[in-house]
């Protein structure tokens, strides 16, 4: 097994993957780390794939199956008020490739992109690969990690090419509220930068909040690139289907880049995604109810442990302050994995300054979440006792 010394040199995505590898060596470990929905892909989607698998399958066009692009455009208009056509849609090999294509098509060496802190660190490589740099924009727990437009404006320079929004946020569970979106849209127009809006968790926003797509604001279609996918909404992570919504010329540019990254997305996966996009979305409502219940259960468990956190407004994660344990989050995560057999991620996997925060997912059945909470509570009691002695 890797030692603490091995993993403490790591941060970002490498740290997350090292911890996941470590967890494989821990018998009976409960994974509350990765954002992979445990629920099965809905049966009607699987059935569509089952039928298609037995028939002829052609290599799909680079930009995606026309019917799928069309369905994504229709849903964007119906669900989020983003009035686009199929030429504004590119189907990607998961949302992650979408982000890579966006950054490649948008950023040049020396450019700057504004990124809220904390951040989903898998973005780092897509940005650094272009030779651009990211500029952190602080967000604050007391505002539910919504972004302050004035903090964005303060960091705008002539090199600013884009602002990256993730709403709901991974890792904080914060959302961009409509009034914030409006202010950011004004900034984007005034300073001529692009807003890249990652909305992969957009189907899971908790009452009383509502998901809001910044591309739906009047006049913003030419300023916004929206990223999303089927992985989280339909529990389809293994199918690898994401998408980008952008102006036609940007879609054409990303399609030309995609010819060299992975080529077309697997056809069977696109057929399944088409079934999801055209199907009854009551499955998403069912998922939402399940995740909401889990959120309540895990929240109660974390409170009982004495961890401080703001209620997530969307997504699958709790972003909890671990200061009360008197231990740095990375060390705490290592101990919880070894002693409580629960995998969670330390804040330093999402930004250098978050050494006293933990990201914990709700992506386990309720009884498993209860069990994880019990184990963590017992381990934390021991840690606090040892600290007090």
């Amino acid at each position, binding site marked *: 097994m890797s030692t603490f010394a091995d993993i403490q040199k790591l941060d970002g995505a490498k740290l997350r993957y090292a911890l996941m590898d470590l967890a494989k060596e821990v018998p009976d470990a409960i994974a509350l780390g990765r954002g992979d929905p445990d629920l099965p892909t809905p049966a009607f989607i*699987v059935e569509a*794939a089952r039928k298609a698998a037995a028939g002829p399958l052609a290599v799909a066009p680079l930009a995606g199956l026309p019917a799928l692009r069309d369905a994504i455009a229709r849903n964007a208009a119906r669900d989020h008020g983003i009035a686009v056509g199929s030429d504004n849609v590119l189907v990607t090999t998961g949302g992650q490739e979408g982000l890579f294509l966006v950054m490649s098509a948008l950023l040049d060496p020396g450019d700057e992109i504004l990124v809220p802190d904390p951040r989903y660190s898998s973005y780092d490589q897509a940005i650094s690969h272009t030779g651009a740099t990211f500029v952190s924009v602080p967000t604050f727990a007391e505002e539910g990690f919504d972004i302050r437009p004035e903090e964005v404006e303060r960091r705008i320079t002539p090199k600013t090419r884009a602002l990256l929004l993730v709403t709901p946020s991974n890792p904080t569970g914060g959302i961009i509220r409509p009034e914030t979106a409006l202010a950011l849209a004004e900034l984007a127009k005034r300073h001529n930068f692009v807003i890249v809006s990652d909305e992969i968790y957009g189907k899971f926003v908790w009452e009383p909040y509502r998901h809001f797509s910044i591309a739906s604001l009047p006049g913003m279609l030419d300023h916004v690139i929206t990223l999303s996918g089927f992985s989280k909404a339909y529990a389809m992570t293994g199918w690898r289907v994401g998408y980008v919504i952008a102006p036609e010329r940007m879609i054409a540019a990303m399609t030309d880049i995609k010819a060299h990254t992975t080529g077309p997305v697997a056809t069977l996966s696109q057929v399944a995604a088409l079934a999801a996009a055209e199907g009854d979305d009551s499955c998403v409502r069912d998922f939402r109810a399940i995740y909401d219940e889990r959120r309540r259960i895990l929240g109660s468990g974390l409170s009982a442990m004495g961890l401080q956190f703001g209620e997530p407004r969307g997504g699958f994660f709790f972003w909890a302050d671990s200061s009360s344990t008197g231990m740095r989050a990375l060390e705490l995560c290592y101990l919880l994995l070894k002693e409580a057999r629960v995998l969670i991620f330390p804040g330093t996997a999402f930004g250098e300054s978050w050494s006293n925060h933990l990201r914990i997912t709700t992506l386990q059945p309720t009884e498993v979440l209860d069990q994880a909470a019990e184990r963590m509570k017992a381990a934390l009691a021991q840690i606090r006792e040892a600290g007090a002695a």
Partner: protein
Amino acid sequence: MTMHLSSRAQALLGQSGESPPEAGVPMDPAAIRAVLDALNRGETHYTDRPGIQPLRKKVAEGLSLKFALPFQASDIIITCGATEGRFVTLQQIIAAGDNVAAPDHAERIAGGAVIRGAKVSTDLTAAKLLYVASSSGQTAIETSLSQVAADCLVLFEVDDAESDFHPSQVSGFSDRVITVGDLGTMQDLASARIGYLAAPAQTANGLRDFKQALTICSTNLSQWAALAVVEDL
């Protein structure tokens, strides 16, 4: 406002040269069965980053048999077609401004090189990476290998089912060759977008990390379909 495009995007705009659509073909019955079985097992989530272990093992065995070289499952990363294998190698192995030599099939790596900010040429002596494909033939490949610098790595694409020559068989190249191939085109699985990359230990971690950053993992069902039908590589 017209959205700004990066210089690399402008350079590639209109250059993808997409082939006209082809009629679909049914997958091999064994691949269909494997897909249906995988769906029954709920294989619809992420796999391990480098791919499912039995497929990595099968690819390693196939490469070992074909080239009489000791490939291990741990050397193998399952990719979204050979395209991703080439791309990941180009992005991870070379730096902006580096030279890539491609005496043949340069069109396969030209776009990836533009994205990396690298230069593609036929100048072998200045290359940090040499791209060669098995279809170019043993003699042509050996000639190229004889001209590259000692620190030049080799990206070798297996695109000729008959050839059993591999650059690692040449003295001095045993740990300098990254092998990529497509598991789809040879097996009527082109629509599944599945391939592989085999890398020496010193480069494997970086390639795996870059693949993870690009696509996390390859399509789950495609991997099971490939496992069912891959015989000869």
